[in-house]
């Protein structure tokens, strides 16, 4: 109402007339340029200031949009797409300060309209929607350096490390934290599910954000009988580790190979109408759409070619080889011969049929593991085995089997492992469990409400 005393006689552009009738009225008033009529308009609330409190969904969306926009602007002005999050202890201090300041604002200005807005449903809806929008960009635009030029220009090919992401996350966190405070004080037991959910989510988001600067993921390429005590991160930076590992054995098991029909021109596997169970087993007969019948006579897991036939031998460069009889319905002929997938020193072996080639697909790894000697300071060296899905702990680090020389397979001369240090993991897991407990509780309660009408 304070705007009544304004001397200049025009309506501020951000005032929105409520309806077409009032629009017309305002137009007439503007024409007349009378001070009294202006007062009449304001007194009768024919126009409402867009930013007049209480803020609703529209205002919430405008505010929410400002955050990623500011982030984008910052990215473009500063000219780098990596948001910098400080390391421990500064990230923790910032996080705690963030929560404490929101707590203080909440307790001192609880009645203020702004605080009430920041913990309101419209604000929540806007923050979730904006965050979904940012994630959609991330899910639709390829997130790697070879993305489209337009995306690279706007730095949309690495949204995770952009201001857009960080700022929309901050808005989400602000709303989330305010909301949590409204339910903590005054505390009621029936808010338990709500609190577990929301605090759990806050802990997960906070923990994961702090993690992004304190997490170490170091690749270690380990050759036989060479102690390695350093690892390289994704940016190629080397770090020293408090322990050393020495590769002693590498072991790999393969699934039995599969027969495939290969298109001679494109050199790709042919898709048959019904995909047969083409895994090799001695004595088995495999049919490709009733046109080609293959009977397996001999199957060597480790073999070498010698003058067009294969002989069993287990040494570097061996390949799986299968002796087959192929019957083609069309030509009513039977062909005999060997097929193999080849290896790093042997060519693949195929049988020429009327339309296609019959070959053997490269074997799929079933399980691989590396045996290491692990040296820790002031301790006897111990033997550990790393398998995918079974990491091993050592001095606050976790070691993971990642890869090997896939070209050489069983005869790989090195294995690739990853050393991971994740200091915020316990916190994030606490958040996970709180979220799960909260979701369970809330679902339980909501189901009960509806049953009671």
């Amino acid at each position: 109402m304070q705007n009544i005393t304004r001397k200049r006689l025009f309506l501020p552009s951000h005032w929105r007339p409520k309806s077409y009738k009032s629009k017309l009225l305002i137009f007439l008033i503007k024409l007349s340029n009378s001070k009294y009529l202006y007062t009449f308009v304001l007194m009768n609330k024919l126009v409402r200031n867009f930013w007049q409190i209480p803020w609703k969904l529209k205002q919430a969306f405008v505010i929410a949009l400002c955050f990623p926009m500011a982030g984008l602007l910052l990215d473009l002005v500063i000219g780098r797409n990596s948001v910098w999050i400080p390391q421990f202890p500064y990230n923790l201090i910032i996080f705690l300060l963030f929560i404490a300041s929101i707590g203080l604002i909440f307790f001192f200005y609880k009645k203020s309209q702004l605080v009430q807005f920041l913990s309101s449903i419209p604000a929540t809806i806007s923050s979730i929607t904006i965050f979904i929008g940012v994630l959609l960009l991330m899910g639709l635009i390829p997130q790697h350096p070879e993305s489209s030029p337009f995306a690279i220009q706007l730095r949309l090919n690495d949204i995770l490390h952009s201001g857009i992401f960080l700022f929309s996350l901050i808005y989400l966190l602000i709303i989330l934290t305010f909301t949590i405070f409204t339910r903590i004080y005054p505390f009621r037991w029936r808010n338990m599910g709500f609190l577990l959910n929301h605090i759990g989510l806050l802990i997960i988001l906070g923990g994961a954000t702090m993690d992004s600067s304190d997490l170490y993921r170091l690749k270690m390429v380990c050759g036989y009988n060479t102690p390695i005590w350093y690892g390289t991160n994704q940016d190629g930076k080397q770090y020293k580790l408090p322990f050393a590992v020495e590769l002693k054995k590498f072991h790999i098991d393969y699934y039995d190979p599969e027969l495939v029909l290969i298109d001679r021109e494109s050199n790709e596997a042919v898709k048959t109408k019904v995909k047969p169970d083409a895994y090799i087993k001695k004595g088995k007969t495999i049919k490709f759409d009733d046109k080609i019948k293959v009977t397996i006579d001999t199957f060597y897991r480790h073999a070498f070619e010698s003058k067009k036939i294969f002989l069993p031998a287990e040494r570097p460069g061996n390949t799986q080889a299968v002796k087959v009889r192929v019957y083609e319905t069309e030509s009513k002929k039977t062909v005999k011969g060997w097929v193999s997938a080849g290896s790093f020193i042997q060519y693949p072996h195929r049988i020429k049929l009327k339309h296609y080639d019959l070959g053997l697909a490269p074997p799929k790894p079933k399980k691989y593991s590396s045996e290491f000697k692990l040296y820790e300071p002031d301790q006897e060296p111990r033997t550990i085995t790393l398998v995918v899905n079974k990491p091993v702990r050592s001095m606050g680090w976790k070691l993971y089997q990642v890869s090997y020389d896939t070209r050489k397979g069983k005869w790989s001369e090195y294995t690739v492992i990853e050393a991971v240090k994740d200091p915020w993991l316990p916190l994030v897991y606490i958040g996970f469990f709180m979220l799960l407990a909260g979701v369970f509780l809330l679902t339980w309660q909501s189901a009960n409400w509806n049953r009671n009408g």
Partner: protein
Amino acid sequence: MQIGIEMDNLITYYIVAGSIVLIGLIAALLAFLEKDKRVPLVFLTIAILWLGFYIGVLWYKVGHAPLRTLGETRLWYAFFLLFVGSILYLRWEYKWILIFSVLMADLFLVFNMIYPENFDTALMPALQSYWFVPHVIVYIFAYSMLSIATLFSLKGLYQMRKKRWNNQSLNIIDNLVYIGFAFVTFGIIFGAMWAKEAWGHYWSFDPKETWALITWLMYLLYLHYRKFKNQNDRITLIILILAFLMLLMCWFGVNYLPAAAKSIHVY
């Protein structure tokens, strides 16, 4: 009788799936005719047990939980759809929900008959984990819940057009979404814990993970929008349908997305 699942002749699958499709259709027809509420349920129970038995045998034959390929997850999806559909029918007597869930389950079973190549026995090392079964089953169960909620919202939009909308249906949608959302949350967190074991980090914004998070947030948006004072029922239903589109994107759309060409989740 010996039940062999030789996928090269597929006859067993045709017999099993065909009989389930038939039983389901009979149950749907009986529910539609409304003679006796119990009779369709008896048929459905037989179909569910029969499909469950088939999945069990398949599990035994391939040597791991048949959950890896889309074809295998379709079997589970059909199983849970029949299950959830009959529970809803038993509790609230929604006959057309039963019909729809039966038709959807049948559709998935028939789809597998047409494209049977999705069965495979080789399981890559990253998938060999005790997290595999809980992660996928929880998700598939959630998907069946949420797809039925989506059916309700499509029906709601139709009713709005015909001016017959009654917002009482939102109560059952809420129930379905709450349960579905709880299961999606469990699925996503089980997935994160598994990723920690398999790949070294619980969240790396792999495209599949990004879309899973989008899906989760869409349902979160629905739950919050429901608490909004000036909520508009039409927008509520539209949010739910959009959320389901995101879910479909996450489930199999991701595999065809250029953004996911480098994903570690594409098998």
